[in-house]
């Protein structure tokens, strides 16, 4: 392919994932070749036909902006890979899987015991922690594989996380609220990227972790 085409494609695929780059290259190459052939059929020489075909494609920066809104970027692909890898590690390790399943039950039992002894404050905190852990850790084992179930699960998850953070750091005062936000920030950022991935990736290609 001509150098002017390579330059256009490298600008149009900037910051896209390797898979997205390959997709764009293939479709733009096919388009460019057909456009060039049509121009040559009309009597233009090869160089002029290439220039015309490239001009018809428009500004590569605008194409790049549009592509980044519809195809996975390199950072999104990294998050997707990491998420799937973490899920595989947990689900393939029987000890870890059972520990995660039993942890909320154990903490819940401890909460009941503490409440019976009369320590209401600690008991409530433990019960809250057990509930939040149950929502977060049992997610991969729940039958969440449709958009609507995913929405319900994520709503519950975020409410549980927010309540837990506010209870742990004291959301009533400014310092506590700020602390809760700082703790939640990495999770919020990851969720922001995952929302973008959900929008771009057809549901048929969603890994289980994307539903959670």
């Amino acid at each position, binding site marked *: 392919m001509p150098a002017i085409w390579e330059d256009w494609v490298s600008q149009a695929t900037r910051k896209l994932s390797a898979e997205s780059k390959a997709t*764009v290259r293939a479709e733009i190459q096919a388009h460019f070749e057909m*456009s060039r052939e049509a121009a040559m059929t009309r009597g233009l020489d090869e160089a002029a036909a290439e220039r015309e075909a490239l001009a018809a494609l428009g500004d590569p920066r605008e194409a790049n902006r549009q592509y980044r809104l519809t195809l996975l970027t390199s950072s999104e692909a990294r998050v997707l890979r990491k998420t799937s890898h973490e899920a595989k590690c947990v689900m393939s390790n029987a000890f870890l899987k059972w520990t995660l399943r039993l942890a909320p039950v154990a903490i819940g039992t401890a909460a009941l015991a503490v409440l019976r002894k009369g320590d209401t404050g600690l008991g409530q905190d433990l019960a809250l922690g057990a509930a939040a852990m149950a929502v977060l850790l049992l997610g991969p084992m729940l039958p969440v594989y449709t958009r609507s179930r995913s929405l319900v699960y994520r709503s519950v998850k975020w409410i549980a996380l927010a309540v837990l953070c506010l209870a742990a750091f004291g959301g009533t005062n400014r310092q506590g609220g700020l602390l809760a936000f700082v703790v939640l920030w990495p999770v919020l950022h990851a969720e922001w990227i995952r929302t973008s991935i959900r929008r771009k990736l057809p549901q048929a290609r969603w890994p289980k972790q994307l539903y959670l």
Partner: protein
Amino acid sequence: MNVKGTLPVLILEAIARTPSHGYRIAQEIKERSKGVLDFKEGTLYPALHKLESEGMVESYEETENARPRRYYRITRAGRTALARDRKEWREVSQAVTMILGEA
């Protein structure tokens, strides 16, 4: 004329009768509008990807002149969206004509 915003519905219309590949879709939109709707072809594919992720179109590979081509066909959801957009467009068009026609 700038077709930004209307490109998805124009794409759906272009493939409503028969599946097509990107280059032919671009040419059909330009030819059917007699060159009035001229858009930069590099933005066609992002629009096609968006329609695909929304379930409005499906894509598949087919060989044409010994070259692999990605064809796009409209789905049932795409046809429903197209019918709705056509209806909305007629209403908007009639309303604007009523106003501008008086000027």
